[in-house]
């Protein structure tokens, strides 16, 4: 029964729901139906038949293989479900922002009309408290959208951050330049001879497209 539920979950995660009206509007008059149990049974039969016909592995190994495949299938399924959930949340958030943006646009138009009337009137004043509220709301929205974009960017491996100038550590050696009393100039340090690097250089040049 476990595999049937998994297939159901997989079908559910990787399929879309459409109403009959929607299908009709796509020009479909009939749809074929298949039960999840039948799909599961077909998969199971196919896997067992392929494994048995190959003659390469024993029944015990076939069972182990099936078990491993099921485990892996379940992992992938859970991952897809998580991704689908994340995607849905992001979509909802974007829709909410869109709605907010549209409301603000409508407010902007109303405010524009009101300002035009006020400016036309004698002794009109500059934007009042309503104008300030609107500017603050717009700024908040922009900030929120920027944060959202930055988070999405980070998720995709892109960031708005720019590299700072290269660090300079020269100042750390101010006190190390003075000449110290030492006998190091007269002492030989052990040396080792090693194989050449001509082959390495030739191969690297070739890889880089040189002669």
């Amino acid at each position, binding site marked *: 029964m476990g595999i049937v539920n998994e297939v159901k979950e997989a079908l559910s995660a990787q399929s879309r729901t459409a109403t009959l009206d929607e299908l009709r509007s796509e020009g479909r008059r009939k749809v074929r139906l298949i039960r999840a149990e039948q799909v599961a049974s077909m998969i199971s039969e196919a896997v067992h038949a392929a494994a048995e016909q190959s003659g390469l592995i024993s029944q015990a190994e076939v069972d182990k293989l099936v078990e491993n495949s099921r485990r892996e299938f379940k992992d992938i399924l859970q991952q897809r479900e998580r991704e689908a959930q994340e995607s849905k949340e992001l979509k909802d958030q974007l829709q909410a922002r869109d709605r907010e943006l549209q409301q603000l646009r409508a407010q902007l138009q109303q405010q524009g009309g009101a300002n035009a009337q006020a400016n036309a009137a004698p002794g009109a004043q500059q934007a009042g408290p309503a104008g300030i509220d609107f500017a603050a709301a717009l700024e908040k929205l922009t900030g929120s959208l920027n944060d959202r974009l930055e988070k999405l960017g980070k998720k995709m491996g892109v960031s708005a951050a720019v590299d700072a100038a*290269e*660090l*300079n*550590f*020269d100042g*750390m*050696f101010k*006190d*190390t330049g003075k000449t*110290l*009393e*030492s*006998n*190091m100039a*007269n*002492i*030989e*340090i*052990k*040396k*080792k*001879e*090693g*194989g*050449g*690097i*001509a*082959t*390495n*250089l030739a*191969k*690297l*040049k070739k*890889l*880089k497209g040189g002669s």
Partner: protein
Amino acid sequence: MTDHQNPQKRAPVDAGADTTVALGKGLDIGTANLAAAVQNEDGGITVTVERNAFLDIPSDVYSKNMLTKLKVPYVVHNGKLVVIGEAAFELANVFSRETRRPMSDGLISPNEQDALPMIKLIINKILGEPRTPGENCHFCVPAPSLDVDNNVVYHQGLFESMINKMGYTAHAINEAHAVIFAELSECDFTGIGLSFGGGMANACIAYKSIPCLSFSVARGGDWIDKNVANVLGCPRSKATYIKERGIDIRDPKSREEEAVTIYYRSLISYVLQNIKARFESGQNMPTFQKPVDIACSGGTSLVGGFIEVFREEFAKIEFPIPVGRIFRSEEALTAVAKGCLVAAAIGES
């Protein structure tokens, strides 16, 4: 771009000879050892190696004369006689003291106030003067660690400044990427390079010389020494001595060697498990059609039986990508310096 940042020139070595030596030097800035590589006139390379350690002793005229007679390098710093390099390590063992170390866990040590002047002296000594102003010097830096929060940016910037001040043009290269340059030419520089150093183990996977993924874990030879010293109740330099006196970790002969063996196996297993986990996470991973080779290098891999134990531990895990040969570099201690030299000679940056 300054004059010395120009791509590599080639300098004739000797009039009348056909051979030319590519300019450029490679520098391995390791926690335990510092190594500088340069091409020699015979077509091979010469690597100068010095232990990255020092030890201060009371300063007097007799000690100075004695050290010079014994060809032990010293420097007088803040009124103290500071013995540098391998000799510091040997003296520390004689007097049952701990050496002072400019670096820890693969990076410049924040706890050692004399770290900078001492490491600068050693690097100056092994690197020598540039043969031409602004000669390329590629130095290795570790990759960010999976298991500790470390500041690679500071470490890299510091050595870049130091090497530039010596008259070179410094370029940083990832430590394990350097191993790939040194060891995987036969496979078109495709495969996995591992550097088992004193402070860290670094890993890099590259496709046709391009690094796809690199990272480090903050365990290495020092981690073995620390744990062996803890269980045996001896100074760390003694544990280092036990480890380096030529033991075989497949066949420990004493309680001390048994302790070293246990921690070696644990280190190898830890590194492999982390590589596996990182590769399995699957981010930025290429797909390999053919099995790739794994090249191990670094001073910690020099112990007898290392590669056999590595293969045993490797066989215990289900590695996520197909692997061909697993081998240790023939010149494990100097492979990183050699890889840095290859990068410097080709002008890789």
